């Protein structure tokens, strides 16, 4: 369906939708959430889709970061939130204080491949094993014609350009997921526990996904990691998984999420996953960003809006919209089936 821009004078609450959408457009009011900025592009698509179906409704999403999102969700200032990391025990407790015992809904609403991207004259694609990637990012491998790289790329014509690693300077979910990948796939080389902060000192870094991409584009011989939809014309690394090299793709990223096990011992609608980084045929470096909501809200209207919005977000249609707008990997049916009942059950309480 076509997006529908608001005109200058249109007040969001009075604007009428002409588009013959198949969803019932009965909801109205304003719903506000916030959190991970990685979801922003996808969130724009979801909000637009939902608002077109419900012209009387407005959904806002403050891209204040996952930390802000989790905090805001915990103290009730956001009705829903996005977070690049699952709630930890403490946060879960805070959230349950808001939502009620077992009333937290959490599921990987946004899954996106993280590309290892580089800027090297004349080279578009390279194969790298997890160990090689780890060594490059640790600064152990310093030139592009290093044996370890050459070994995996017999056909490539590798220059002796120095490698400049560009990492995220801000604390970020992308970093955490990338570190987690290196830690689990190349644990011998990469020994630091994953956190949102890059552990190697003295390298180039930049703020935000657009920052690292811009910096990588600005320098010759740079390499970075970034949300795959953002890497523009940078070359990409095909990552070694189970003896094969896999190029990033939304489908391969969706596979890894679909095939990884659900975290055990969580409450019914908390669907978090333990990513397995070496499943053959999948692309193992993914950013998994969670959507958070409650099953009960104090306010009827809010409950209706969250229910409608999350329903759309998790629907096939919503996931496809995000895939189109942000290059994300659609939710697997397994996960959708697991969380939809939770969303359906959202009510006043």
């Amino acid at each position, binding site marked *: 369906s076509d997006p529908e*821009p608001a005109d200058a004078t249109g007040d969001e609450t009075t604007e009428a939708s002409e588009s013959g959408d198949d969803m019932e457009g009965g909801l109205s009011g304003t719903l506000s959430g916030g959190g991970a900025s990685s979801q922003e*592009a996808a969130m724009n698509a979801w909000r637009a889709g939902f608002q077109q179906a419900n012209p009387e409704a407005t959904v806002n999403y403050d891209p204040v970061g996952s930390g802000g999102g989790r905090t805001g969700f915990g103290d009730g200032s956001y009705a829903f939130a996005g977070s690049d990391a699952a709630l930890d025990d403490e946060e879960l407790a805070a959230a349950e204080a808001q939502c009620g015992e077992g009333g937290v809904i959490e599921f990987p609403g946004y899954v996106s491949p993280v590309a290892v991207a580089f800027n090297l004259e004349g080279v578009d694609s390279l194969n790298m094993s997890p160990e090689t990637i780890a060594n490059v990012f640790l600064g152990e491998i310093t030139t592009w014609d290093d044996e370890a790289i050459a070994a995996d790329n017999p056909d490539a014509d590798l220059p002796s350009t120095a490698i400049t690693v560009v990492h995220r300077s801000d604390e970020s979910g992308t970093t955490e997921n990338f570190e987690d990948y290196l830690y689990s796939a190349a644990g011998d080389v990469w020994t630091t526990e994953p956190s949102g902060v890059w552990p190697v000192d003295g390298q180039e870094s930049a703020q935000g996904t657009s920052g690292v991409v811009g910096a990588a584009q600005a320098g010759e011989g740079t390499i970075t990691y970034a949300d795959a939809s*953002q890497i523009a014309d940078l070359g990409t690394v095909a990552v070694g998984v189970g003896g094969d090299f896999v190029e990033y793709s939304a489908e391969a990223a969706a596979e890894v999420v679909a095939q990884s096990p659900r975290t055990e011992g969580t409450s019914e609608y908390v669907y978090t996953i333990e990513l397995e980084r070496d499943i053959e045929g999948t692309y193992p470096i993914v950013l998994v960003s969670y959507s958070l909501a409650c099953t009960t809200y104090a306010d009827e209207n809010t409950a209706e809006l969250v229910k409608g919005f999350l329903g759309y977000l998790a629907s096939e249609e919503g996931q496809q919209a995000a895939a189109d707008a942000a290059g994300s990997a659609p939710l697997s049916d397994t996960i959708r089936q697991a969380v939809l009942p939770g969303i359906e059950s959202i009510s006043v309480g």
Partner: protein
Amino acid sequence: MSVATESSSPGGSPDTARLLATVDPARRRTDRTMQVLIYIAFALAMIPLIWLIWTVVAQGADRISIDFLTQSMRNIFGGDPRGGIYHAIAGTVIITLLATVISVPIGILTAIYLVEYGKGWLARSVTFFVDVMTGIPSIVAGLFAFSLFALIFGPSVRIGIMGAVALSVLMIPVVVRSCEEMLKLVPNELREASYALGVPKWLTIVKVVLRTSVAGLTTGVLLAVARVVGETAPLLVTVGVTDSINFNPFEGRMMTLPVFAYRQYSQGNAPCPGGDSATCVADIASQNAWGAALVLIAMVLALNLIGRLITRWFAPKLG
């Protein structure tokens, strides 16, 4: 009368000619050197200015259209090249105006207090703390405003006035410091002339001191406005963001131009599967960012122009 022959030689007395022609060459050189340096300083400042403005115009001009200026981004996402920044223009104008309305009276009155009344511990501490205030990072001002309003309205509050309060924290010290300097420059003679006419102190301040320094005050206020009009971080945590138009600073989220520009820049490229087309432009977000930046610069430029007119209108007439 004097003997005229004395001065008959065409060049006049050579001694005198020498006396009048020579000034220590080293002094001349210093004078010339400093003149050149001062011209260079100015030229130096023009380079980034022209470069910056050229960059912004070159990047942003194509995006500017009537639609861009009169529509919001509601329901626009991905590579959709429609939509505009009307909501952000409105937000910027309203929030900055509110911040100005809060800070300028407080700032100028405080400057008046410091210059005209200030004595003793209160004046000293105000001076002292205004100095300290200039170093508050903008994000801290935002967090402060947020926690202040959260105390009263709960943590879910996101309203325009909150952003205005955060900006005021940043603006006030700039207003106070620059206005203080301007007021100090008003000669005491003028105050005395006014007192001697039986004009009460407050009227002297309002009608003589402020009037005489109005040009400087305008500059100070414009500086302060410029200081905050481009703020991003404090607005994100206080006002939040929205794609829709909201004229009410006391209810609901608002968008502002710098936040809009920054968010668009952060979003990066949109995936356009079939390449760029009429309905999907991959780098539309960055185009939006530059377009918003251009509009923001144009707005502040217009403001400066108005300020300049005010300055000229009120400038002391010296001849």
